[in-house]
Every structure is written in structure tokens, then in C-alpha cells.
């Protein structure tokens, strides 16, 4: 009964999404206030029914309803309840439902926080979001219905992939989707502006907090994914340049370009067409990411199915959304106007450089991710593009980008003075260079990449200090936008330190350990006390005991496990990590050898948590800037630039 209720709710939600898009869009075109006023109630009702459908699926998982095919395939009676809940989005169908649910959630947020916007703008934004929702609901009902029954019902399920049985999976997908789908708001604003032809500074001011919010969620979601891969895959890496990771990085890079370009559009009225283009691009890449990850084109833990009908549908959906919006862009962009002029050295030009670098980086990732797929699809051979490519491309692209973080925020709009910038920044730059050259000597081996990383991080931190000090001395009051930006930039510096240190100084040992053996790694002594059998709720494990000491003093005891999941028979490595501010100690079990010995993997990873702390600071910076007072102004109609 409950699954049928969910199915029925999805159909009702589709009807409501159609209403939500057709009536308000037509109403805005014909200036019919009654039709436009349908937007908010229709969107809220659609949210209600998508939420009911989502609740029905979650309920089926929680009560182990093994007459539902999706539950049979992705759950197991002995699975702990929390993972039964997360299994709701552990499948292709369920993750689509989560995506649609989050889209409805963002639309609901737009209906609630848009009272200061003109009615036709609201109608168009909600209408466009309704169209996207229609596409997803149709996709789900036609090819990927999560409520399909299995007759006769199965006795038990085949269990959730062990990789997904992890607390990180409770929040990583929803947060990541909040980011992906959040760009649909920016996209809807961009299309609304193109349709109406009204694209001015106030449009940018309305669109900005939504875009920044989506970007913050995406940052957090990517950070969680990276951390999850670090502790869960047992390889100790924090970024693999895996296609699924790239699929989330591309919208992030374009989204980062977008929030910077929006700043120019709001403050100076320039870059308008470009900003619209980026908004379309960020959402298109979010959809492309879904296509790549969910359709089974990329084969990894994230792809659930290799059903050609699904791939075809998503491809058609992508073509309609991207093609349609670009067509609209091509027809309307010329009417948008150019905006203010600016000099060769100005904040505008620095932000333009920022955008070019970010887009090039995105292009490089796109090339490395899609080219192997194209070759494969055309039967021209199988190739793979590994980390060496991405690393060698990213270092030269990111270096100038990070140097710009120091200069850009201090440069004046329209025309900046080079002598003034030099006077404010020369000591900071000099100090960064000196420290960057000398500091690595105290860390052991001097390496050029370490010096470069420290230089960039210090340069960002010092320039932030100079900028903040200048504002305080100049009597500038509280500005959430200004301090949010600086917090986010500071987060970049923190992450740069983490990446630099762990890349240059990490130590890895793969080694055989007999019971009682010790291995010393960077001053930490690991004593292997053997492995015992333990039983988990749905797995059996061999749990190793490693006592870690430093200079004879105990530091911690780590219990890495080698599990075998009972339903699927899948072996699985559960790492054990001692987290620290300046280093992580990472252990994972390899295989049992003769006489109670095991092969064991040991890592010393300096400063690795800084990468994720940095990402969290970036997201917090974004969240902080959203609270800026000017985004809450209630003025109706078009405000001047």
C-alpha cells in the first residue's frame, strides 16, 4: 500500500510541476497576474507530494519491505536501521528521487524568500525550475521507478554495497545534491532574465545569495566525498581524479567563476552576458555530472545501472536543457548590453583573469574525463587519463589563480593604481618569498613544490591581513560580504598548505607484520599485536590491533579491520586512523599470511586534515557572505545600479 501511495504521489507531483511551469511562464509572458500567482502554491504542493513519495520509499526501506524491487536490491534485513535509511538513496532510482526532492526543496525556498522580487521574475524562476522538475519526474516514472514491486516478494535483500555502509553516506549525497541542484536556482534566474530581457545589477543581487549558497553546499559535499574516499577506500588518498570526482569538480570550478563574475555584474553592471553563460554552464555541468555518474557510462561505485534507455533519456534531457538554454542565450544575449568600461589594471580585469583560469581548469578536467569516453564510444581504443595529467595541468593553472587572490580584492573597481597596489603589498610578498624559501629547510628535504605551496598560502594570508587592516583603519564597518570573502580565501590558503605538505612529505609502508613485530615511521612505532575474529551485525571481520607509541610513550591503539559481508560475500578493508592537527596515522589490513602474520599498510600523513578544514572554511565564508544585509532589502521593482 505504501509504495503505491508513493507512486501515486510522484504522478501528482508531475501534474503539479507541469502546472507550476506552464501557467506562471505563460502568465508572465501575457502579464496575467492570476496565472503568475499560481507559481508559489503549485511549487509548494509539488514539494509536499515529492516529500510524501520520498517518505514512502524511506519507510519501505526501514520496515524491510522485500516486495519492493529497489529494497531487495539495495537492503538487507540485518542492515542497521541508519543504513537502511541511507539505502533510500543508495540506488539509481532512489538517488533520482533524492535529487527531485532537493530540487523541490530549493523551489520551496525560492517561494519563501522571494517576497522582495517582482512578480514576473518570481513566476519565471519558479516556472523554469518546474520544467526541470518535470523532466526528472518523467525520467523516474518512465525508466527508473523506485516503487516497482517484486512478485513474489523476496525473503531477504542482497545488501547495500559495503562502501556505502558508512556514517559519511548519511550526509555526503544530500549535501552534494544540495550543491548540484542549488545551481538550478542560478540557472532559473539566468533564464528568467533572458526571457524578460531585464538583466541589471538588481538581478545580480537577487541571484547572488542563491548561487553562493549552492556553491557552499557543493564545496562541503565535495569535501565530504574526498574525506570519505580517504578513510573508506583504504588507499589513503584524498583525491584520485576519478571521473566521478571530476564530475563534481567541474560544476564547482564553473560555480566558483560564477560567484566571482556575479560580483562584477552586481557592483559594476559589467560581464552580464558572461555571467548568464556561466549560470547556464554551472547547471549544465551539474546535469552532465549526473549523467556521467548515474547512467553507468562511468563504471565505479557511484554508477548503479547500465540501462541504455536511461542513458538515452538523460542524453535527450541534457540536450533539451543545455541546447534550449544556449539557444535562448544566443538570441537574447546581444540585447543584454555591455555595461561599464574598465581599465587594463582593475578589479574587473583581475576577476576576468580569475574566470579565464577557472574555466580553463574546467576545460582541462572535461577533456581528461570525456576524451576517453569518446574514444571508447567510437571504438578507437581504450585509454585512461590518470593523475599525472591533472596534476601537471593544475599546478600551472592554479598558481596564478592563487596569486590573484592576493591582489584582486585590493584592486579598485574600474581603474586600479599599480604603484598603490605595489606599495601595499610589496612587504607582504617579500616576506612570503623569504619564509617560503627557508621554511622547507626545517621540515627536512627542501623541495621546490613545497616552497611554491608555502609561498602561495602565505601570500594569501598576508594579503588578507593587509586588506582587513586597511578596512579597519579606513573606518569600514561590518560587512558580511567582505569578511565572508576573506574567510573563504583564508580557507583556500589552509587547503593549499594541506595539499602541499601531504603531497611532499607523506610516508607509506606496505609490509608483512608478524605478531610482535614493530615498524617505525617518522618517529611513530607501530606494534602489531595480531588479529582477532569479531562479528558485526551483517559482517564478520578480522580485527588487527596496532599499538602506536612515540619515544616509548603510548600514543594510541588502532583497530583496522578486514571484513567479509555475509549477504554479498564481499571482502572489505576498514581502515583505522588516528587524526591529528599536524599529522594522521593511517592503518589498513592487507591479507592474512602464514602464522598469524598479516600484510599491513601504514601511512604517516602530515597536515592532511588541513585540506578538509580549508574546504569547510570556504563553505563557511560563503554562508557568511549570504547574511549580508543588502540581500535582504525589500525594495520592489528595479533598483538602480
Amino acid at each position, binding site marked *: 500500500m505504501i509504495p503505491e501511495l508513493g507512486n501515486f504521489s510522484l504522478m501528482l507531483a508531475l501534474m503539479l510541476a507541469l502546472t507550476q511551469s506552464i501557467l506562471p511562464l505563460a502568465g508572465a509572458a501575457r502579464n496575467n497576474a492570476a496565472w503568475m500567482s499560481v507559481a508559489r502554491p503549485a511549487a509548494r504542493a509539488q514539494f509536499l507530494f515529492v516529500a510524501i513519495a520520498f517518505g514512502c520509499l524511506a519507510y519501505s526501506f526501514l520496515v524491510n519491505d522485500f516486495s519492493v524491487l529497489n529494497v531487495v536490491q539495495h537492503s538487507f534485513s540485518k542492515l542497521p536501521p541508519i543504513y537502511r535509511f541511507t539505502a533510500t538513496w543508495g540506488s539509481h532510482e532512489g538517488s533520482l528521487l533524492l535529487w527531485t526532492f532537493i530540487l523541490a526543496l530549493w523551489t520551496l525556498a525560492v517561494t519563501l524568500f522571494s517576497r522582495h522580487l517582482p512578480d514576473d521574475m518570481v513566476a519565471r524562476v519558479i516556472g523554469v525550475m518546474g520544467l526541470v522538475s518535470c523532466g526528472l519526474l518523467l525520467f523516474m516514472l518512465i525508466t527508473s521507478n523506485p516503487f516497482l514491486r517484486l512478485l513474489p516478494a523476496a525473503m531477504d535483500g542482497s545488501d547495500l554495497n559495503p562502501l556505502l555502509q558508512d556514517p559519511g553516506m548519511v550526509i555526503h549525497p544530500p549535501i552534494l545534491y544540495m550543491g548540484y541542484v542549488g545551481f538550478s536556482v542560478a540557472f532559473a534566474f539566468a533564464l528568467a532574465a533572458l526571457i524578460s530581457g531585464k538583466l541589471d545589477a538588481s538581478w545580480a543581487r537577487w541571484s547572488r545569495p542563491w548561487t553562493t549558497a549552492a556553491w557552499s553546499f557543493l564545496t562541503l559535499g565535495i569535501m565530504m566525498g574526498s574525506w570519505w574516499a580517504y578513510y573508506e577506500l583504504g588507499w589513503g588518498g584524498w583525491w584520485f581524479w576519478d571521473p566521478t570526482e571530476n564530475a563534481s569538480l567541474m560544476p564547482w570550478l564553473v560555480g566558483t567563476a560564477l560567484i566571482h563574475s556575479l560580483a562584477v555584474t552586481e557592483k559594476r553592471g559589467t560581464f552580464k552576458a558572461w555571467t548568464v553563460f556561466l549560470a547556464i554552464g554551472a547547471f549544465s555541468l551539474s546535469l552532465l555530472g549526473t549523467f556521467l555518474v548515474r547512467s553507468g557510462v562511468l*563504471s565505479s561505485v557511484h554508477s548503479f545501472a547500465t540501462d541504455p534507455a536511461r542513458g538515452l533519456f538523460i542524453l535527450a534531457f541534457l540536450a533539451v536543457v543545455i541546447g534550449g538554454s544556449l539557444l535562448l542565450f544566443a538570441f537574447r544575449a546581444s540585447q543584454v548590453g555591455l555595461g561599464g568600461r574598465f581599465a587594463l589594471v582593475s578589479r574587473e580585469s583581475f576577476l576576468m583573469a580569475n574566470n*579565464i583560469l577557472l574555466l580553463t581548469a574546467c576545460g582541462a578536467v572535461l577533456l581528461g574525463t570525456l576524451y576517453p569516453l569518446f574514444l571508447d564510444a567510437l571504438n578507437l581504443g581504450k585509454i585512461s*587519463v590518470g593523475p599525472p595529467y591533472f596534476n601537471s595541468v593544475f599546478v600551472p593553472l592554479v598558481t596564478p589563480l592563487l596569486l590573484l587572490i592576493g591582489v584582486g580584492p585590493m584592486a579598485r573597481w574600474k581603474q586600479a593604481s599599480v604603484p598603490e597596489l605595489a606599495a601595499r603589498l610589496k612587504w607582504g610578498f617579500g616576506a612570503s618569498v623569504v619564509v617560503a624559501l627557508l621554511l622547507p629547510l626545517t621540515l627536512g628535504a627542501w623541495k621546490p613544490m613545497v616552497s611554491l605551496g608555502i609561498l602561495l598560502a602565505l601570500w594569501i594570508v598576508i594579503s588578507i591581513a593587509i586588506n582587513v587592516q586597511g578596512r579597519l583603519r579606513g573606518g569600514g564597518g561590518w560587512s558580511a560580504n567582505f569578511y565572508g570573502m576573506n574567510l573563504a580565501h583564508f580557507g583556500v590558503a589552509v587547503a593549499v598548505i594541506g595539499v602541499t605538505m601531504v603531497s611532499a612529505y607523506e610516508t607509506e609502508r606496505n*609490509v608483512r607484520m608478524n605478531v610482535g613485530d614493530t615498524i617505525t615511521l617518522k618517529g611513530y612505532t607501530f606494534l602489531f599485536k595480531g588479529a582477532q575474529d569479531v562479528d558485526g551485525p551483517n559482517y564478520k571481520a578480522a580485527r588487527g590491533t596496532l599499538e602506536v607509541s612515540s619515544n616509548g610513550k603510548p600514543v594510541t591503539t588502532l583497530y583496522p579491520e578486514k571484513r567479509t559481508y555475509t549477504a554479498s560475500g*564481499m571482502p572489505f578493508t576498514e581502515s583505522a586512523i588516528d587524526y591529528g592537527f599536524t599529522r594522521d596515522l593511517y592503518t589498513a589490513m*592487507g591479507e592474512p599470511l602464514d602464522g598469524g602474520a598479516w600484510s599491513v599498510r601504514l601511512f604517516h600523513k602530515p597536515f592532511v586534515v588541513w585540506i578538509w578544514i580549508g574546504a569547510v572554511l570556504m563553505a563557511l565564508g560563503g554562508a557568511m557572505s549570504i547574511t549580508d544585509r543588502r540581500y535582504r532589502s525589500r525594495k520592489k521593482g528595479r533598483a538602480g545600479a
Partner: protein
Amino acid sequence: MKSRHKKLLLVAIAVIALGVIAALVLNAFRSNLVFFFSPTQVVKGEAPRDRSFRVGGLVEKGSLVREKDGVTAHFRVTDTMQTISVDYTGLLPDLFKEGKGVVAEGRLTDSGVFVATQVLAKHDENYMPPEAASALEQAQKAQKTLVPPPESK
């Protein structure tokens, strides 16, 4: 006039910068591509000797030998027609199993042994790495369409 000159300069800088960046990206791309070969292709000598590549297929049953140090392994990869020997030092992935699909990245030595720097098996029990699947498919096709190789070897 002056502002037009400036605009030209700006455009010129942007074009040159983009050109340099594009050249850099494409160069990095070309020199870091990793090609895939099936054991048959490797035995035929189609695989490069001077750069690393990937080879995939099934881990031949009964071929896995571990050395005393516990982390050095030898095994053979087969596409059911040809077989090559692989050496690997490090921990093998969870789903590495005899008779299952595998992809190894590394270099071919002069003795014909493939020294792997990375061994990949995938995340899912029933799942076959696509490269390994294609190696098997090619071998099957070859067996059907080509004249069978002489039995005497």
C-alpha cells in the same frame, strides 16, 4: 583612439594567454595518456616498451604466488588466448581474486614480465572492469573469426 588601443592590447593578451594555456594542457594530455592493451596485443608486440600502459583480463586460476615478504605477488593475466606474467609489490585490492577480472598499470620489461605499479579490481563483486571485459571479448571474437592457431605450439 587610446581606449581602442587598450582594448586591442587586452584582447591580444587574452588570446596569447589562452594559446599558451591550451598548448600546455594538450601537451600534458598527450604525454600522460595511458593506453590499454589486451594480453594478446602485448604478446604480439603491439604494446610500447618505453612507456607505461594498462593490461587487463582475468587473473589465471592457480597463478597467484606470494613471496615471503607478504607484499610481493606474481600472477598471470589472461584473455583466454594469451597470457602474460605480472609482478606487483604492494597490497592487492579487496576484490582481487583468481578467475576474476583485473586491470594492471605498469611497464613491460625486456624479459616479457609486466611490472605493475597499480592493480585495479573494481568495487563490486559482480562487476568486471570494462577494459578487462573488452580484452576477453576481443579474444572471443578472434577465436571465432580467425583461423585457429596451430595446435602443435
